[in-house]
């Protein structure tokens, strides 16, 4: 197995600030785990004896399962905690929960929280590695990494590609992490959506802003769709589902503006007929949505390995 050629920090809290070399190293390491996952015996003992706690303050099946599979395939002991259902209702604070778990001496905490910055706060209070599994509208680093891995495998590179991220940019941590990663790796990024779903001064992140799919998707190599939450569909941010789908839902017609061979991505779960039409979502020639899920496990294995697999301390200049 290749070893990481650059140092990793203790935690993976976000993509912002992560240098291109670290991102490349994580993607390279992920590649090796794709082979592991595709072989008959998927289990390694890289993390044998280590404890990973999945601490989810926000309901999630897909991401939590992906992290769980990743940790188990590396031989770690995995504990899942859905805090939304227990402690918080008893009035326990975020930091109380963190300190309690910290006292059990885990090696890594994978944390998802509905408030932006909550994972960073928690990371300051614990002694183990922390992986951000998605915090509010801030970052979702493993999603951006798995998206990048998917693109790199299909297109052979990230640099120079034109990527459109479409839909609810305002509320999306996936969009933010992807913008940081893609910009760092030399891709060109556009954000496309109604102005009501654009964060203020988003152009300052180095992206082009488009309010029309026709111009936004013109000649792009990658179309990344985002999920529109149900509570944002009627009246406040967009008038209705039908209007959103008509102007911002991805369908065959809108795909015509893209470069031939353009890929369709979605972090899931999809709202069919809201942000994406089934005909394009299920088109295996262009849609890599299921591949993204597969890459997700490999990327999370790589992240766990890089942070707690014993590589970190062996590297010069490690924190």
């Amino acid at each position, binding site marked *: 197995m290749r070893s990481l050629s650059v140092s990793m920090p203790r935690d993976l809290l976000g993509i912002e600030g992560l240098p291109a070399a670290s991102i490349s190293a994580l993607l390279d390491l992920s590649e090796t785990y794709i082979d592991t996952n595709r072989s008959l015996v998927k289990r390694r003992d890289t993390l044998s004896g280590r404890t990973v706690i999945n601490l989810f303050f926000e309901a999630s099946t897909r991401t939590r399962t992906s992290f769980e599979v990743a940790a188990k395939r590396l031989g770690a002991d995995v504990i899942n905690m859905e805090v939304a259902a227990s402690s918080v209702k008893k009035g326990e604070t975020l930091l109380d929960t963190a300190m309690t778990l910290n006292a059990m001496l885990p090696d890594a905490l994978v944390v998802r929280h509905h408030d932006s910055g909550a994972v960073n706060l928690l990371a300051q209070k614990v002694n183990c590695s922390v992986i951000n599994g998605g915090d509010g509208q801030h970052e979702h680093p493993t999603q951006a990494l798995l998206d990048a891995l998917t693109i790199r495998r299909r297109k052979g590179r990230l640099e120079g590609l034109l990527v459109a991220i479409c839909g609810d940019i305002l509320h999306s941590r996936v969009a933010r992490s992807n913008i940081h990663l893609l910009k760092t790796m030399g891709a060109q990024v556009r954000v496309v959506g*109604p*102005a*009501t779903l654009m964060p203020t001064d988003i152009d300052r992140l180095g992206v082009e802003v488009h*309010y029309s799919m026709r111009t936004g998707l013109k000649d792009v190599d990658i179309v990344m769709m985002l999920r529109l939450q149900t509570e944002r569909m009627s*009246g406040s941010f*967009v008038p209705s589902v039908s*209007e959103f789908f008509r102007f911002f839902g991805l369908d065959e017609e809108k795909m015509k503006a893209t470069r031939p061979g353009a890929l369709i991505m979605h972090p899931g779960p999809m709202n069919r007929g809201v942000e994406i039409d089934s005909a394009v979502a299920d088109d295996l020639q262009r849609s890599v949505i299921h591949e993204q899920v597969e890459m997700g496990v490999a990327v999370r294995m790589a992240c766990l390995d890089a942070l707690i697999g014993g590589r970190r301390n062996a590297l010069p200049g490690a924190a």
Partner: protein
Amino acid sequence: MANGSDGRPVAYINARLIDPSADTDQRGAVLIGDGKILDYGANLFSGGAPYGIATVDCRGHCLAPGIVDLRVHTGEPGEEHKETFDTAGRAAAAGGVTSMCILPDTEPPFDDASLIEFVARRARQVKLAKMYAYGALTLGLKGEQLAEIGLIAEAGAVAFTDGDRAIASAQLMRRALYYAKTFDVLIVQTPQEPSLSTGAMNSGEIATRLGLGSSHRLAEAIQLERDMRLVEMTGGRYHASKISTAEGVDIVRRAKARGLKVTCDTAPHYFALNEIAVGDYRTFAKVVPPLRAESDRQAVVEGVRDGTIDCIVSDHRPQDVESKRVPFALAEPGVVGLETLLPIALELYHNGQMSLPRIWQRLAATPATLFKLPGGRLEKGAPADLVLFDPDIAWVIDPEKFESKTGNTAFDERPTQGRALMTVLDGRVIHRDNKLWPETVAA
């Protein structure tokens, strides 16, 4: 009779041409054919019209682009007893109005694309004026949820508004401006802060003497100031309708000086009348916003004159007798205006405040430009929508003679000067000599 709609060219000669875009007022002629202006100018046919072309002798009267009225309420659909597209079209033809934008506060309101298509279909049937529809800004005009602005704009809505209801929530207005920017559509707001605008007339001595609940004049400034900040924040396109106070004029003037994408309009009653018109509980002088103080009226005149106020609209709002013959506080607001817009606007000319081309900038050219409509200017290839008028003819406004279905005018019995003699729509004469032209009626 010569008629430009059958394709044969017709020359309107010996006219006093009012060209708002060029800001000129000079003798000349207009040649029309195929419903369009083929040529025009001071030198056209100065040596006499060539043989074989039908001519209309304008006898030195003013020939100007037909009026583009951005603010017309009809009763259709829902209140056809007050006005229909037919009667509104007849009133427009009589008043020299060739394009009108219809407000969405009907029953049901225009918060669905199908209603915009309904207006277009009815306009094609009526053929007395070009009729466009506003889309509702919020669902049911309730000021809570955005309407399907994208779909409604695609169906042909020219702008978005909740009519006389201002959007109270700053967050909703902010999102509306952002969302409208997405589709590059214009938002039109009647800027009267709703919680301060619940009374029947303007706050002040007269309201106090009459014992009427009142709406404070600063309700306009408060709403406008907020909206200017939201325009600054969002970069959305915004048009304030029916500016009625000195502060309102001033706020728009300063916003324009700062470079904001803001325009506004007012209606004749705000520069020709003040709160005294309410007099002895005259419900025909009840309008939204209410008639203001004399100092406000003067400021509005100055705003129209210096261009701070971009457009003059009729704010035509028919009300039947049952809606007006009730105690003042209970009366429905609104006046009809299609047939009095031209003569009352001409008062600015007779009072020496504005030239005719400048007045036509406010009545036709600027409204058409703002709403991206085809009429409103003398231009080769533009639709031959024209009004021939005598600016000096004296008459007394008599609602009994209105083409409009109702006679709720605040200008009843007002002696006035200037009147449309002929209205031409797409080259067709549709009104002449104080009556609808027979061919049109037959059609």
